[in-house]
C-alpha cells in the first residue's frame, strides 16, 4: 500500500498491457504468438493504451460547446402565446418565473441543471485539460474524482430539453394558451450532448501519466 506513492507504480501501460475500454481485459500486444492485436480478443473493442487524441478531441468539442452555449442562453427555449400576446422565455427567464411564482425548489433544480452544471462542466474539463498539458502533479486523486463527478452529473442538463418537450406536448393549439419550442432549445441540447461526448473523450489516465518520473508517456 505504501509503495503506491513512490516509483514502483504498476500501470497497465508501463507493463506493456492494453487495458480494453470495452471489457477491461488486459491484453498483451504483441501476443504470445507474435500477433499484433488491433481489437480486444474478448469484446472486439479497438485497443489503445490511451483514448486516441484525447486532448485535441476534448478541446475541439469544448470549443464547439462554448460557441453553442451563447445562443442556447440568449435565444428563447419556449414561446408562450396567451390570448394573442406572445412571450418568449429563455432558460434564465424560466428560472426567474419559478422564483416569482414561489416554486423555489423547482427554480433551484432548473438553475442547477441548466446553468450551473453546463458552466461547471466546461470549467472543470478545461481545467483538467490545462493541468494535463502542463503535466501538473497537483492532487491527482482529487482531479480524477472531479472528472468522475463531471461525467456522472453532465447528463442531468438534459432536464430543460425534456421540460420543453413535455410543455409543448401538454399545452397545444386549441387552448387559450399555447407553448411552442424556441430555437434556443436546439443549441442547448447540442451543448449537453457535445459536453457529454467531451467528458467521454477525455482520458483521466493522462492525469496520472504526468506523475511518472520519465517523460516517455505512452503513445496513442
Amino acid at each position, binding site marked *: 500500500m505504501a509503495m503506491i506513492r513512490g516509483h514502483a507504480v504498476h500501470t497497465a501501460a508501463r507493463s506493456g498491457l492494453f487495458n480494453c475500454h470495452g471489457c477491461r481485459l488486459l491484453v498483451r500486444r504483441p501476443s504470445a504468438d507474435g500477433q499484433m492485436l488491433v481489437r480486444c480478443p474478448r469484446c472486439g473493442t479497438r485497443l489503445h493504451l490511451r483514448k486516441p487524441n484525447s486532448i485535441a478531441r476534448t478541446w475541439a468539442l469544448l470549443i464547439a460547446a462554448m460557441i453553442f452555449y451563447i445562443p442556447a442562453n440568449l435565444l428563447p427555449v419556449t414561446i408562450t402565446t396567451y390570448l394573442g400576446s406572445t412571450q418568449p422565455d429563455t432558460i434564465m427567464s424560466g428560472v426567474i418565473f419559478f422564483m416569482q411564482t414561489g416554486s423555489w425548489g423547482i427554480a433551484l433544480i432548473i438553475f442547477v441543471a441548466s446553468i450551473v452544471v453546463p458552466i461547471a462542466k466546461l470549467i472543470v474539463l478545461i481545467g483538467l485539460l490545462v493541468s494535463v498539458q502542463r503535466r501538473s502533479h497537483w492532487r491527482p486523486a482529487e482531479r480524477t474524482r472531479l472528472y*468522475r463527478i463531471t461525467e456522472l452529473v453532465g447528463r442531468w442538463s438534459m432536464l430543460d430539453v425534456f421540460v420543453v418537450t413535455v410543455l409543448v*406536448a401538454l399545452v397545444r393549439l386549441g387552448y387559450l394558451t399555447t407553448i411552442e*419550442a424556441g430555437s434556443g432549445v436546439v443549441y442547448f441540447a447540442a451543448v449537453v450532448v457535445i459536453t457529454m461526448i467531451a467528458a467521454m473523450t477525455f482520458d483521466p489516465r493522462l492525469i496520472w501519466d504526468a506523475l511518472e518520473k520519465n517523460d516517455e508517456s505512452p503513445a496513442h
Partner: protein
Amino acid sequence: MTQTLIACHECDLIHRVQPLPENSKARCRRCGALLYAHFPNTIEWSLDLAITGLVLRVIANIYPFLSLESQGTVLETTIITGTIILSEQSMAGVAILVLLTSMLIPCILLGALVYVLWPMKLGHRLPANRRAFRLALTLRPWSMTEIFLLGILVSVVKLAKLATIIPGTALFSFLGLVLVLASINTFLAPQTIWEKMDEWR
C-alpha cells in the same frame, strides 16, 4: 479462465483480482474508481429486471401519460406526442434526441441485456452476444428516463395553475421503469458476465 489482473480504467493502476465478499464492490486503491463488483446472482437479477423493464416500457407506450383538463375538455398525452409536436415545429433534431434518450435507447439497452442474459442463464449463447453486451454497456449513460421523469415533474408544477393535470397509467409504469434501470445500474456486474462469456471458449 478467470482474469487475475485488472487495471483501473481511470488511472491505469494494475490490481490483482481478489475474491470479494458477496454483494460488495472493489474500488481502485489509488483513485477510488469502481473496479469490479461481486453479486452472486447478477445474471438472474439483471435478467429479471430487464424483462420487467421491457414490460413496463410497453405499458408506458400504450396508455396515456398525462391528461390535461382545462375549460371542461380533457386532452390526453402519450409519451410520443411531445416528440411528434416538436418535429412539426421544425425541431426534428431535438425530437429525435428526446425519442432516443427517453424511449429507444432504454429499450435497446434492456433488449440487449435480455438477449445476452437469458441464454446465458439457460447455459447457451446466441451469435454476436459480446457485441450486444458491449452495446448495452455503451448505451448506459444515454438512457435518460430518470431525467425525463424529473422533467415531467417540473412541467406539471409549471402548469399547475393553468389546468388540472391528471397522471395516467403510463406515468406510473414509467416510474417503475426508472427504478428498474437504476437497479440494473447497481446490480449489473459486467466483469462477472465477461468472465462467464470467456468460459465458453
